C-alpha cells in the first residue's frame, strides 16, 4: 500500500474519531429542533457531560458510571432548557446561551473545588476510560491486502462510544420516521396546534425531545473526556457543539444527511491537523484556518440559499401558547 493511501486511511480513521462527538450532538440537535426547540446549548451540555464523566470515572473508577453520570447531568441541563423554553416560554436562544455560559463556569468552579488542578480533572487511568476495542479476526483479516488494513485501521480499534455514535444515526432515523413518537415529534415542530388538537400533549412531547437531546449530548461529552481524551480539560468541547449545530442545519434536520455533514466536518478537521505547516504544490502553505472555518462558511452559504436550501421546522423558536 502506498504511503499516500495509508495517510488517507489514517485521516479517515481520525475523521471517525473527530466526528463521533459531532454525530452524537447532531442527533441531539435534530431531536430538539425537530420538536421546535432551538438548541444552541449542545456545546454546554457536552462540556458539562465531559467534566462529569471524567470526574465520576476518576472517583468511582468506572467509565460506565462516568457515562451514566454524564447523561444525568446533561439531561438535567436539558430540563433547565425545557423549563425555561417550554414551561415558561422563554427565549430559546437566550436559554441556550445561559446554559453554555453556566457550563463554562460550573465545570471549572466545581473542578477546582474537587481536584484543585486549575479546573482539570486528574488524568484518567487506563481502566477508568473507554479503551479501543479490537475486533475479532483482526490478525487473520490483516493478512488480506487493503481490506485487512482498512479493517484494522478504520473499522476495528475504536472505543465503544464511537460505535454508539454510529449506531445513533440509524436509530435516530428509525425513531423519527418509523415510530409513533417520531411522527408526533416531527408534527410538533411544524404545527404544534395540530398535535394539541389531536389530543397529544405538546409540552410532554417537547420535554421528551430535550431529554433525548440531553442523553445524546451526555454520550458526546463522555466520549471527549473518557474516550478520546483521558481526563477533562477546561473548555474541551471547543466549539464542537456549534459545529454539530451547523451539521444539523447542513443536514437539513435529517439524521442521514447530518451524519454525512459530521463526517465531512470531521474530515476537514482531521486533514487540517495533518496539513499543519505543510507546503502543498501550487497552493503554498496549507490554508489550515480556512479549512477549520469551512463548516461555518458552508453553513452560512447554505442558509442563505446559495448552495441549496435549508428549511427549518416551521414552528422552531416559537413557544407554544395554548
Amino acid at each position, binding site marked *: 500500500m502506498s504511503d499516500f493511501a495509508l495517510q488517507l486511511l489514517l485521516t479517515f480513521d481520525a475523521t471517525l474519531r473527530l466526528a463521533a462527538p459531532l454525530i452524537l450532538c447532531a442527533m441531539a440537535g435534530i431531536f430538539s429542533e425537530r420538536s421546535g426547540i*432551538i438548541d*444552541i446549548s449542545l456545546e454546554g451540555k457536552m462540556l458539562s457531560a465531559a467534566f462529569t464523566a471524567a470526574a465520576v470515572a476518576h472517583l468511582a473508577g468506572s467509565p460506565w458510571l462516568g457515562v451514566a453520570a454524564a447523561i444525568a447531568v446533561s439531561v438535567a441541563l436539558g430540563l*433547565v432548557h425545557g*423549563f*425555561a*423554553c417550554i414551561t*415558561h*416560554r*422563554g*427565549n*430559546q*436562544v*437566550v*436559554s441556550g*446561551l*445561559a*446554559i*453554555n*455560559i*453556566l*457550563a*463554562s*463556569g*460550573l465545570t*471549572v*468552579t*466545581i473542578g*477546582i*473545588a474537587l481536584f*484543585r488542578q486549575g*479546573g482539570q480533572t486528574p488524568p484518567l487511568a487506563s481502566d477508568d476510560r473507554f479503551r479501543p476495542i479490537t475486533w475479532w479476526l483482526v490478525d487473520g483479516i490483516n493478512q488480506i491486502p487493503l481490506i485487512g488494513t482498512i479493517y484494522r485501521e478504520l473499522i476495528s480499534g475504536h472505543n465503544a462510544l464511537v460505535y454508539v455514535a454510529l449506531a445513533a444515526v440509524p436509530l435516530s432515523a428509525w425513531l423519527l420516521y418509523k415510530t409513533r413518537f417520531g411522527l408526533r415529534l416531527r408534527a410538533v415542530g411544524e404545527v404544534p396546534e395540530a398535535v394539541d388538537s389531536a389530543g397529544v400533549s405538546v409540552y410532554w412531547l417537547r420535554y421528551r425531545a430535550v431529554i433525548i437531546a440531553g442523553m445524546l449530548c451526555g454520550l458526546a461529552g463522555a466520549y471527549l473526556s473518557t474516550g478520546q481524551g483521558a481526563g477533562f480539560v477546561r473548555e474541551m468541547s471547543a*466549539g464542537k457543539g*456549534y459545529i454539530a*449545530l*451547523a451539521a444539523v*442545519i447542513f443536514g437539513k434536520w435529517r439524521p442521514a444527511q447530518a451524519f454525512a455533514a459530521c463526517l465531512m466536518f470531521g474530515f476537514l478537521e482531521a486533514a487540517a491537523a495533518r496539513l499543519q505547516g505543510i507546503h502543498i504544490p501550487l497552493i503554498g502553505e496549507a*490554508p489550515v*484556518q*480556512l479549512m*477549520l*472555518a469551512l463548516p*461555518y*462558511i458552508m*453553513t*452560512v452559504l447554505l*442558509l*442563505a*440559499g*446559495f448552495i441549496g436550501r435549508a428549511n*427549518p421546522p416551521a414552528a422552531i423558536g416559537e413557544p407554544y*401558547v*395554548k
Partner: protein
Amino acid sequence: MSAAPPLPRWADLFLLPVLNLLAAFFVCGLIVLAIGENPITALGVMLKGAFIFPGSLGYTLYYTTNFIFTGLAVAVAFHAMMFNIGGEGQAYVGGLGAGLVSLWLAQSMPSLIVLPLAVFGAALFGAAWGIVPGYLQAKRGSHIVITTIMFNFIAASLMVWLLAGPLIEPGQMSPQTPKFAAAGQLPSMQSMLGAVGIESANSPLNLSFLIALAALFGFWVLIWRTRLGYQIRTVGQNPEAARYAGINVPRVVIITLAISGALAGLMATNEILGVQHRVVLNFTAGYGFTGIAVALMGRNHPIGIFLASLLFGALYQGGAELDFEFQSITREMVLLIQGMIILFSGALAYMFNPPVARLLARLAARREAANV
C-alpha cells in the same frame, strides 16, 4: 392560561429585574455553599475588590466600558427584534480595523488624526461584520442567530490566520501585531486626570470610557428621538405595520445590524487602542456574550445598560480578587453568575410575573378594603 392581573409599570421596570437578579445570586450562593465556602464572605471580597482597593474602581470602569459597547450593540438589534449573538466576532474584527489604522498611520501622523481614524476603523470593521448577517437575514431569509454564531467562528479563524501570518510582529513567535506607535494609543485616564492636576491610581481605564458614555447618550437619541430609531422600533414591534407605513423593512434591518456591529466594534477601542496597544489573540474574551446579559438586564435602555455594565464590571474586577482570597473559588465564579443572570433575567424573565402580579393585586385589594 390563568389570567394574572396586569403588572404595574414600576413593578415591571424595577421590581421584576431586581427579583430576577436576586434569584440568580441566590442560586450562585447555594453553589458556593455547596463548594464549602461562605457566599457572603465571597460577595464581600468581590465588592472590596471592585470598589475599595486602590485603583480598583479604575479597573471596574475599564471592564464597564467593554460591556457598555457590547450591551448597546445587542440592545440596538433587540429594538428591531433581531438577536445579534455575534458581538464577539464583530468586536474582534473591529479590533482589526483599529489596529490596521494605527499600524499604518501612527508612525507618521499625529494622534489627533490617527486616533479618530482608528476609532472609526473599529466601528467600520465591526459594522462590516454585522452588515453581512443583516443582509442575509433581510434579503435571503437566513436566521440571524445562526449566521452571527457562525460569523463569530469565522472571525476567530480569520484573526488567527492574520495574527499568526501576515500581521505577525516580525521575529516573534506569539501571534500578535507589533506595538502601535504612541500616536496610535488612546490616552489613559490617569494621564488625562494628571493633566488637569488630579492624582489617580494606575489602571487600564482610558479615554474610551468617555466614548462609551457618549455612545450611551447617542443610543438614546437614536432610538427615541430620530426617525431612524422610530423605524427600527416599528420594524421590531410590528413589521407588517412598518410595511403599511412605507418603511423599507429589509433596509432598516441591515442598517440596524450595521449600527449594532459598529457598537460592538467600538469595544476594541478600549481593549486595543486603550490597553493592549497591539492586536492580540482572543482579546474579546467573551465580552461580546456578556453584552447579551447586559442588554437583557438593562431592558435595552441606556440607563439600564449603564447600570448592568457597572454590575458586570464590578463582577469581573471583584471576581479577579477571589483568586487571591480563596482556594476553591476563582474568577470563573463570574461566568457562573453571568450564566445565572442570563437564565433568570432572560430566559426565565417572566417566571415571577404571575405570582408578583397576583400578590400586588391582593395587596391593593386589601388596602382598598381597609380604606373603605
